[in-house]
């Protein structure tokens, strides 16, 4: 059963994530059609970042509000796995680029690595610690 803090966090972060996808889609469409350059283009690249930043702020607020210490620890462990995966991908690609690697990493690879690692960490925990039937 989810705690009250978790329910609030899930509701708020899902709303903000929906906002992120809308913002991202909107700026993507704008750049495709208006072809901005310079500062305008940079602003378009930065705009979708704000809802994502809010999600992290909500996560921090959740960790502060959550009374269940074990749930807090699990969330932090999953986030650490996500950060580790994201950094590893970034270092891998960065190293290749130092030596003029001709290839191209898919866009947002670090983000996908982060999300994938967080989900995998959560799933691994749930599968290795099943709750007994009551």
């Amino acid at each position: 059963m989810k705690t009250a803090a978790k329910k609030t966090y899930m509701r708020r972060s899902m709303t903000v994530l929906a906002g992120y996808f809308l913002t991202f889609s909107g700026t993507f469409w704008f750049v495709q059609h208006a072809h901005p350059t310079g500062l305008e283009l940079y602003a378009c690249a930065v705009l979708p970042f704000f809802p994502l930043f809010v999600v992290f702020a909500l996560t921090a607020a959740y960790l502060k509000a959550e009374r269940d210490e074990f749930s807090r620890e699990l969330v932090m462990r999953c986030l650490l796995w996500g950060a580790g995966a994201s950094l590893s991908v970034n270092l891998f690609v960065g190293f290749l680029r130092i030596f003029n690697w001709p290839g191209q990493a898919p866009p947002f690879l670090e983000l996908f690595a982060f999300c994938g690692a967080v989900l995998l960490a959560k799933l691994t925990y749930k599968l290795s610690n099943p709750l007994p039937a009551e």
Partner: protein
Amino acid sequence: MKNRLRELRAERGWSQAELADRLEVSRQSVNAIETGKYDPSLPLAFRLARLFAMGIEEIFEDG
């Protein structure tokens, strides 16, 4: 850390979910403590002790 949580819970006829509700934690937390995979912090250990009306040392065994 070994503990008698499962035994004490069974004596009172509480499910893990019921104990979790009383402690205001998730059932996952109760299960993790019972299986020895997680050692509670002092505040949570005190809440457990108050709930079962016994000392922390009577619930948890060090070593």
